[in-house]
């Protein structure tokens, strides 16, 4: 066995990646027998920057730029943690607006991911189609917040912009659009035979592993763990809604396997769930007038935060799973401690059980299946241990391997 295996490093860098990491795979023929992770290539030391240089207001925008796609999830958790630390309660209308932005973001993030997943299995028609329908929600976000991403909506103690009548109308018409295209979305994605054959039984994460590896978000739910912060713990306006975590067997009518297909199902139906949540939130917003911040004057807020002593945690269910922030204030301009935990931090570990036993051609989709935004292989070197020769395999080659596999399946289906 030992002399037959190869070591295959994947990564660490690719210009399009948000998270850069490197995998060292040991392969036996086409099968992966062992995986090692090498992380930290994109560590930016944001916690250090904030605790040494920024006041809590500046830190909101640092938090916003942790991730481009979850650009509202990090501020969401961050402002919660700060509000707990300083004992501030945001007004009700602000809580609803926060949840609305969070859900709109989930729609765009999941659709983006669906496109990436389609690309990884060589289904580019679907990639372009999904990204086309994603534009609709981005337009709404731009109209109500001012930018397509990095909305700059959150502030400590409330939100910065109100959503008026026109904004609500725009959201409603967008929801109508998504309800209309959703059937096509399901038909082209989940019910498609090629997609199903290509992703069923690939990258399995069992329920036990998911719990032990503390997986979060759709990665955990795809394995059947009904874990969702919006359901487990009432926070913000989510406390008013009856949400339940989406697990795949409800929609596939098959046993939950915890494979890539199950994770696709969870994400796609979460788009529909978000549409339903947004309907309720729009109604709620209309019936809740009031201020949007607890204190208009930012100078007062800054001074209060400077004097505050305390600590707090903030949690939000981001598209990729639970975002967790811990902050501590102690009579200083800057926060004393700030710890950020993004969902992928927890989901890294679940790659290892997922990848063991899969084929190299499946690696891109397995990597993409936990939604680290983009598959993170730049190139891989195949080292032949017996001859000591090595050759470099580009991401393109690897993708093509994946595409060839899809074509084969298509032939078999036809």
């Amino acid at each position, binding site marked *: 066995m030992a002399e037959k295996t190869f070591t295959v490093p994947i990564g660490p860098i690719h210009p399009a990646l948000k998270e850069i990491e490197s995998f060292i795979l040991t392969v036996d023929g086409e099968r992966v027998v062992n995986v090692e992770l090498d992380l930290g290539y994109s560590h930016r030391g944001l916690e250090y920057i904030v605790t040494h240089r920024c006041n809590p207001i500046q830190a909101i925008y640092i938090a916003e730029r942790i991730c481009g796609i979850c650009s509202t999830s990090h501020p969401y958790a961050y402002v919660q943690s700060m509000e*707990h630390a300083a004992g501030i309660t945001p007004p009700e209308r602000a809580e609803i607006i926060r949840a609305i932005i969070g859900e709109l973001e989930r729609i765009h993030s999941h659709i983006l991911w669906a496109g990436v997943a389609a690309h990884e299995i060589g289904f580019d028609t679907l990639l372009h189609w999904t990204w086309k329908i994603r534009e609709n929600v981005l337009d709404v976000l731009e109209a109500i917040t001012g930018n397509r991403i990095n909305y700059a909506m959150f502030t400590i103690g409330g939100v910065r912009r109100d959503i008026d009548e026109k904004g609500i109308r725009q959201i409603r018409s967008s929801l109508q659009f998504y309800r209309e295209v959703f059937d096509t979305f399901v038909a082209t994605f989940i019910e498609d035979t090629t997609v199903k054959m290509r992703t069923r039984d690939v990258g399995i994460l069992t329920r036990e592993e998911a719990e*032990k590896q*503390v*997986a979060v978000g759709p990665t955990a739910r795809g394995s059947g763990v009904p*874990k969702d912060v919006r359901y487990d713990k*009432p926070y913000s306006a989510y406390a*008013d809604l009856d949400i339940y975590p*989406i697990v795949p067997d*409800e929609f596939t009518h098959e046993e939950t396997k915890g494979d890539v297909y199950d994770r696709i199902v969870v994400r796609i139906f979460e788009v529909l769930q978000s549409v339903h949540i947004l309907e309720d939130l729009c109604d709620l917003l209309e*019936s809740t007038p009031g201020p949007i911040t607890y204190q208009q004057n930012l100078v007062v807020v800054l001074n209060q935060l400077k004097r505050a002593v305390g600590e707090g945690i903030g949690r939000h269910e981001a598209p990729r799973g639970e975002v967790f922030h811990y902050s501590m204030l102690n009579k200083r301009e800057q926060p004393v401690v700030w710890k950020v935990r993004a969902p992928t931090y927890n989901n890294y570990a679940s790659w290892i059980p997922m990848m063991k036993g899969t084929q190299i051609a499946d690696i891109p989709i397995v990597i993409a299946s936990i939604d680290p935004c983009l598959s993170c292989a730049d190139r891989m070197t195949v080292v032949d241990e017996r001859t000591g020769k090595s050759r470099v395999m580009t991401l393109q080659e690897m993708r093509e391997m994946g595409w060839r596999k899809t074509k084969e399946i298509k032939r078999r289906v036809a």
Partner: protein
Amino acid sequence: MRKKRAGMGEAPYKKDNETFTYDGKKVTAYPAEKLFDMIKEDFGEDVEGEVKTFTAGVKKKKEYKEIWLKVKRERFHELVEWMSKIQVPHLAVASGRDAGEEIELIYHFSLFYGIRDSEVSLCVKVSLPKEDPVIDTITDILPGALITEREKQEMLGVKVKNIPDPRRVFTSDELPEGYYPWRNDNDPEVEKELVRDLSKEGL
């Protein structure tokens, strides 16, 4: 394949919202105060802490609770074991800070996930003296804790006993030994070498 309002209302796959079933084992949620009393009973003097209550919601107000505990480090591992008898605890992350003479680690667990509105966050603080910052690993109970433990080793300079993989995770190999970014007592000379403020350099 789809239902009317997927994701809203009562979960169709759950018979009730008070329990979480896994592997034939049923987990019933109880209030944070009771959990806190149980911990107090079993650990006595070795733990201290409080239950914090927060309210959420707009029209329907709901409460949620956080337990903030301080535990002696000798009994920390035992506490995690104790929790895992109730449910596999969810570990969000371990954070930490340099508290002068000591290093304070805070493990953010939560129990009763998967049960409507009853998740309890447990923030467990453990103080380690700086001259002997050793703590037991919990990867034997929760293998997923490995990354956060490795991170605490490199960022705060704690030593995790029996850690299966002691390498660095996030910092580069070039970072000098003995420099821990989250500590306040670093050699200012080394820090000056390492930390650049690009906006001051006009970049």
